């Protein structure tokens, strides 16, 4: 009899175990990102803090996706509801995802003015597509002037100063150059182009590859290369790195990714890109890429996801990401911190971003790169004038855009 009773009790216990546990469990949020090394560590630290503060309510788990497959993975999984609740990505793919639909959730509804105001305005602009905000800017990357302190005691403020300084430091026969940057790469060239007031799309999204300002900007760089002779030929990123490391390039225009490749023997400094004497002293305005935190449209916990995104882009976590992750947060309050303000990299990034413009987030942007690159190549191989090359690029981009927007 007792055996039977124990057996019954055991069975009941088993049955209880099978019952669905009432959900006292915390809301689970999944965040995808493509960070590695210290960036990843800093992010995970911030997430752990959030989980501790909201124990029993929200639990955020992160997943680092290899960068190469990241964008495709989001395009494939998120619209089918198999993706994360939040993901971090640069703004360049934003337009494509919005046009494809059911990927990124608009957040204007949640967004209050106080939250909006805490970011650098241009980074917020990068998160906006057709007047609707789709994400909170987490951090940004931008090109600055990186110089060898031994060769350049004080960085040039204007392009005139830069050219005089660079001419003195150039000895083409010995392979020494005053300035080196990937000027035939359209991304790098954009700093000069935007400085002249040019751009690739007008306010209505029509391509303007051959606008007079764009032509002028290419002519300017052509002058630096041919007439002033301060730039090396065929500037691949590898060439620039090796020139800078060997002390054969005094100044470089590049972003934070370049610093990882700089050798320990080179003492370098960072400064804002010079202003353009040729265009009434307007500053060079590089394109910035802004990494935003987006709420996935099919997420079941959009409010909790937004609240986490808001936390992640706040000043406190921003400080951790800046100091430990070596990233440049979009939150302005971060830069009032003494430690951040004293950091030369973060300081230079902040100074530069104030004049930078966000890279267009229109899906049509992917049609610009190939024609633009071939235009730059033909110009610098002296096979076409800047005007003719950009006219050809304009024709090609306009054709592709028209092909997409037909009807």
């Amino acid at each position: 009899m007792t055996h039977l009773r124990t057996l019954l009790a055991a069975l009941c216990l088993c049955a209880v175990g099978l019952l669905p546990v009432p959900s006292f469990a915390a809301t689970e949020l999944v965040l995808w990102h493509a960070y590695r090394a210290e960036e990843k560590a800093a992010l995970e630290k911030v997430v752990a803090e959030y989980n501790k503060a909201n124990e029993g309510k929200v639990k955020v788990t992160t997943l680092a996706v290899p960068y190469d497959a990241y964008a495709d993975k989001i395009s494939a999984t998120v619209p089918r509801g198999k993706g994360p609740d939040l993901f971090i990505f640069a703004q360049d793919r934003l337009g494509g995802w919005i046009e494809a639909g059911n990927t990124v959730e608009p957040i204007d509804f949640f967004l209050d003015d106080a939250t909006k105001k805490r970011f650098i305005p241009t980074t917020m602009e990068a998160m906006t597509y057709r007047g609707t905000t789709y994400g909170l800017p987490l951090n940004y990357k931008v090109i600055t002037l990186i110089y060898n302190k031994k060769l350049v005691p004080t960085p040039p403020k204007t392009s005139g100063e830069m050219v005089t300084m660079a001419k003195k430091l150039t000895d083409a026969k010995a392979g020494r150059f005053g300035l080196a940057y990937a000027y035939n790469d359209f991304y790098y060239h954009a700093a000069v182009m935007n400085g002249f007031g040019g751009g690739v799309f007008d306010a209505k999204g029509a391509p303007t590859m051959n606008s007079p300002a764009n032509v002028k900007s290419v002519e300017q760089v052509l002058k630096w290369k041919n007439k002033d002779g301060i730039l090396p030929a065929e500037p691949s990123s590898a060439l620039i790195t090796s020139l800078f490391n060997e002390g054969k390039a005094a100044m470089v225009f590049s972003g934070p990714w370049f610093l990882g490749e700089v050798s320990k023997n080179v003492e370098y400094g960072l400064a804002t890109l010079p202003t353009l004497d040729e265009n009434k002293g307007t500053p060079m305005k590089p394109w910035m890429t802004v990494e935003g935190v987006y709420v996935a449209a099919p997420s079941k916990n959009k409010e909790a996801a937004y609240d986490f995104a808001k936390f992640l882009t706040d000043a406190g976590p921003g400080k951790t990401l800046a100091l430990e992750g070596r990233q440049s947060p979009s939150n302005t309050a971060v830069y009032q911190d003494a430690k951040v303000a004293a950091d030369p990299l973060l300081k230079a990034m902040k100074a530069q971003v104030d004049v930078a413009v966000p890279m267009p987030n229109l899906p049509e942007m992917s049609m610009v790169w190939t024609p633009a690159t071939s235009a730059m190549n033909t110009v610098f191989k002296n096979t076409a004038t800047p005007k003719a090359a950009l006219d050809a690029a304009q024709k090609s981009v306009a054709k592709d855009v028209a092909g997409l927007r037909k009807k």
Partner: protein
Amino acid sequence: MSQNAPQQPPSAAGTPVRVSSSHPAPDPSTAGPAGRAGGYRGRVLVGLALALGVSLFLAHGLLARANQERAAEREQRTAAVSLLGLADLVQRAGGTGDAVRAVVAGWPGMPGSAVRVIAFSGIRLEASAFPQDTGEKAAPRKLSRDEKPLYDRGQRLRAAVETNREEGGARKPEVESELLDAGASRLLSAPVEVDGQVVGSVESLTPAVVNAEAPSWTPVLLAFLLPLAACAAAVFVLSRQGVRVAVAAALFLAGLGGYTVYSLRALDAELRETENAVSAELRTRGEKAQALITANTLKADPALKPGAWDADMMRRPLGRLTDSGAPDADKLAAAGAQVRGNATKALGALGVVGLAVLLFIGLGGLHQVVRTMVEYRQAYAYITPAMVGMVVLVFFPFAYGITLSFTDANLYNSSQPLSELWVGFRNYVDILGDFSFAKTAADGSLVFNYLNFYYTLLFTIVWTVTNVTIGVTVGLLLALALNVPNLRMRPVYRVLLILPWAMPNYITALIWKGMFHQQFGVVNHVIRMFGGEGLAWFDSPFTSFFTALATNGWLSFPFMMVVSLGALQSIPGELYEAARVDGANRWQQFTAITLPALKPALVPAVILSVVWTFNMFNIIFLVTGGDPGGSTEILVTQAYKFAFERYRHGYAAAYSTVIFGILLLYSMVQNRMSRATEAA
């Protein structure tokens, strides 16, 4: 029929089996018509019944669906008239404030319908006649968090209006329609524009048509039974099978034609009813709106134009009704003609299919098919899984790709059905009709247009020819070297030489790309060791092409080597001995014995390898990536870029179809040529 016992399936061993009955089974297709006349009557009748039955059933289904569509259109158009009328008034009231609430309160609704107004500024519910928005939740108030979709919908409409205005087209819908409660009610939303800015949205919830009245079955039965009865009579009177089938076909057309006339009439009536319903709605709404304008002293300028409320989803007026609600006869006739044209087309297609079925059955085709199926039922059972697999995995995607190539599908319109994106042969004309292949620059040099199809085709051909040549030459040389008799450690060499083939080719490709790196690559390292200067391999078309060529050469020789080695080992040694006795030298032996003996093995290998190389996506995509400027792109990688970089799916599909055409042509020519060589 029972006499036509199916033949036994052949036995597994393949030996002919004797038919068990003492008489061979008569083959009905060869038996004279006079002997089997009775059995053929059934075919005609069954054929007619089947063809007529199926096509009438489908035609009835089409009519029912058309009626349903008409009813839905009627319901949606009346709802849109009401909603756009309200939007017009709200705009006149300035989008916010008490005047808006007065308009909403005064806007008449049918039972079960309600309207509300959302203002973007402050994310507010400005006015609402929804039953749940009373008491504490009465408008005006801030939208609660669970009402986010309302706000997002309004913002989507705003973005759509701005996009359409900027692009000067109509790409995005400016009115959204959604069925709620499992299709029981329809939610329509439209933007509110004040001074050229979208400041909010209006929404209406109306009961949706669940089921339109189904068309009656009587005409279907009539159109089915009358021809069948007539045919039954005719079959017994007429004796020639051909004439019987012809009569059946005529009766089929008469039956279907009769039903077509009936359904076109029914459609016409529906259309008129729709127009009347919308017209009545327009008139009452127009009068009410005028009254509300005067009562609330709203902006009366510009004058009210109710005709514009009858609009499509892009808010473009349909123009079928005038401002007073009277139908515009010309527009109406055009719309009617279009509906009739579509119906006639659909029914015409049905007629063709039905006729084909009738002829197929009546002339004995079905009988033949069934007989072979039964006879070889085992064989068919075995290949069924493979056939299903082929249909799902090969034929369906293939047909879909071809269909896609006739459309303008792209990123922006991927949600629309393909039939709305039909552009005919335009993609093909764009691809094949563009001859801007190259032009002369100012200094007389030739500048290629790398995006041009013919440039890419030329490059692909050069790429294929060079690769196959290298693969065959290197492979053959290595095979000859390995075939030396009594070579020591031959298995080791063979394994080593096959290794490139055994590795996944994308890993090989990435390794080679690294080797050609300008600064850190081993190739430039070696060049520098000998005092040269490293090359920027991917900066000029020729060197870039060379890197891909080297990679693919490395990957392709092992296959050729294995094939030639196998063939070499099967050449009897006596042939060479005899040749030596006859005094032939090494070269003569090679050209007269080795090469001809290799041909049967090498020709198929070359054919295969040409196709592989032509479509060698991995190597080009991973090694050169088309650099510089798309000059080293082959056709498949170019198609990929059109699809996933420029987002033009239809154009890319046409591109792929052209590639398929080229390869098809190639294999046909190749087939004929190799057949000729085999015969020789």
